[in-house]
């Protein structure tokens, strides 16, 4: 009952109101002379320094869903869920150089989205449209999942109702507020709120990793309790260590997820908002602090095992909602007021990425669909306006997904999202290094990668839950005819096929001398830095000459 959780609810609501107020005030923070420009609304004026970028990108990549789902995975399957740690280590050296090149070329040409870059580099509106649609489709369920994070918290606090509307009302209100201040303040709102969100999360986790082991008998006992649970369970894949069959899956999932993460439009939005290359490089060294946090959060799953947490029932009868594990752990182990702070951290943690994702999806729509196909001569002010309205539509869509569909549907879609966003790798990431690929071949590769990825995901069943299709991302190699119980991450296979098709067809199309368009960028563009002149097309304002009236 919610009355038992009154203190938690009050603290949660107060902190929630505080950040909502900050979201509205953010419009005036580092205010530009003219907010009616997509660079201002959608990229915070491309002016964020090291600290803001650290909080913004950290708050963006490490979402509330991550904080809830990763420990839930560890709780359920053990070591396999720890892939999140190598995944978030590998990513930074991987993109250290790549994203600097993307930043530079975007700075020179005024690109706002990865599809803008592809359009210009490969001179292909179709390829750019495919990239934009892939980005939007992959991002939408990710936004919906942020709501799953909030819902897990609300459920634990007993804020539920009998009718669907009553049950979802708090989330609808929360998202309405979020939509209103994102509409007004653009990327500045999540940037400012990220300070609060991350501070709360760091405090909660530091307390949790010191206090909870002390209460539960020490780390050794926690791991032993988990070990005992997995030894007793009949499932073959669980355990506190990997077994011979899931190591390949573990490594390919970590690597594939790392490749995918920075192809997501919201990650690129966060990076493009930084003011120069140095900020990005320094952040690639500083962002792993969040990985440490994530690793410790993941271990909350084992603490929940040691503390004897039983997850709350799920939406369907007989199922359990694993995502409630962490909120329940806090509820049972922390004093009420601190559990309230922890819940607020998760709830606010959902708002930051949801805002950035909706902005990123809106930018993609505006730049690569609206401006490309609907209104060629849109002014920057019109672009900003379309983006603001689209961000509202995107959020309504995300709420509708959660209210009207089984949340499991969003989780499945997000799984698919990781696989499909990987298919933009050849055009976006490799495109930053080489224009060797033919634009037609890139399109064919995308089609092949998408087709194969979808087919593989469709084939994956989970006998334990009775799902026949889309039951995970671990593809059994025996379906390819190999005599082995090993599994592999779908995304890696799909993107390798994508690359192979793109490479082969490039050779064919080049031999057949098919027209390949004109590269709109020069090699120097990829090293441009703050202060270098921009070559933004059209009559845009002189953005770099005087970002501030007086120094």
């Amino acid at each position, binding site marked *: 009952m919610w009355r038992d959780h009154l203190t938690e609810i009050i603290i949660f609501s107060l902190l929630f109101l505080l950040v909502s107020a900050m979201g509205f005030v953010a419009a005036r923070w*580092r205010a530009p002379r003219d907010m009616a420009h997509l660079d201002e609304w959608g990229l915070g004026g491309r*002016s964020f*320094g090291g600290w803001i970028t650290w909080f913004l990108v950290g708050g963006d990549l490490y979402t509330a869903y991550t904080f809830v789902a990763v420990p839930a995975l560890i709780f359920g399957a053990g*070591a396999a869920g*720890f892939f999140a*740690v*190598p995944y978030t*280590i*590998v990513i*930074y*050296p*991987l993109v*250290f*150089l790549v994203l*600097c*090149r993307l930043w*530079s070329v975007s700075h020179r040409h005024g690109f706002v989205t990865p599809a803008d870059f592809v359009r210009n580099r490969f001179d292909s509106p179709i390829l750019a449209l495919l990239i934009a649609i892939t980005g939007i489709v992959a991002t939408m369920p990710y936004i919906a999942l942020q709501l799953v994070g909030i819902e897990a918290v609300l459920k634990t606090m007993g804020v539920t109702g009998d009718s669907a509307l009553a049950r979802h009302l708090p989330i609808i209100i929360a998202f309405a507020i979020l939509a209103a201040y994102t509409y007004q303040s653009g990327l500045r709102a999540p940037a400012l709120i990220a300070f609060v969100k991350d501070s709360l999360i760091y405090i909660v986790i530091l307390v949790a990793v010191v206090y909870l*082991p002390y209460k539960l008998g*020490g*780390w*050794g*006992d*926690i*791991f032993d309790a988990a070990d005992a649970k997995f030894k007793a369970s009949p499932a073959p894949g669980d355990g*506190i*260590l*990997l077994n011979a069959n899931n*190591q390949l899956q*573990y*490594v390919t999932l*970590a*690597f594939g997820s790392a490749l995918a993460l920075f192809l997501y439009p919201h990650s690129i939005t966060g990076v493009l908002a930084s003011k120069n290359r*140095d900020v990005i*490089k*320094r952040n*690639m*060294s*500083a962002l*792993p602090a969040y*990985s*440490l946090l994530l*690793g410790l959060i993941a*271990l909350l799953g084992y603490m929940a095992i040691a503390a004897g947490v039983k997850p709350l029932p799920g939406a369907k009868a007989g199922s359990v909602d694993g995502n409630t594990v962490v909120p329940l752990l806090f509820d049972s182990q922390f004093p009420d007021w601190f559990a309230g702070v922890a819940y607020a951290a998760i709830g606010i943690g959902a708002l930051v990425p949801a805002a950035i994702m909706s902005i990123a999806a809106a930018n993609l729509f505006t730049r690569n669909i609206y401006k490309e196909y609907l209104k060629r001569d849109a002014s920057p002010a019109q672009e900003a306006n379309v983006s603001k309205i689209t961000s509202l539509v995107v959020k309504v869509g995300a709420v509708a997904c959660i209210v009207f569909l089984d949340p499991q549907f969003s989780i499945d879609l997000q799984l698919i999202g990781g696989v499909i966003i990987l298919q933009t790798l050849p055009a976006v990431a490799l495109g930053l290094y080489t224009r060797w690929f033919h634009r037609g071949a890139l399109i064919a590769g995308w089609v092949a990668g998408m087709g194969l990825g979808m087919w593989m995901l469709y084939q994956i069943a989970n006998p334990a839950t009775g799902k026949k299709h889309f039951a995970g991302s671990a593809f059994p190699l025996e379906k390819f005819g190999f005599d082995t119980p090993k599994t592999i991450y779908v995304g890696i296979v799909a993107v390798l096929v994508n690359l192979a098709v793109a490479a082969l067809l490039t050779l064919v199309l080049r031999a057949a001398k098919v027209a390949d368009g004109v590269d709109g960028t020069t090699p*120097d*563009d*990829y*090293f*441009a*830095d*703050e*202060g*270098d*002149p921009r070559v933004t097309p059209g009559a845009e304002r002189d953005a*770099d*000459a*005087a*970002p*501030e009236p*007086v*120094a």
Partner: protein
Amino acid sequence: MAAPEPEAPTTARSRAKDHSPWNWLLFIPIVVPLIPAFFNADSPRLFGFPRFYWLQLAWIILGVATTTLVYQMTKKRGGDR
């Protein structure tokens, strides 16, 4: 916030490119964390953590150290490289 420097701006053409041999070091923190043979074991335990967990958390330090080193060694060159 600093206004743009008043000095003559260095253009991309005059600036060093990303071709430093130091960049090859970045492969270490990409490859090492993806080799399960290193970490997929229980012993030795450290503060109660099985090796699987403390070693993978330690790779974070490896990643930070490498990116920091590469950044420091490749930034702000005068005219060379």
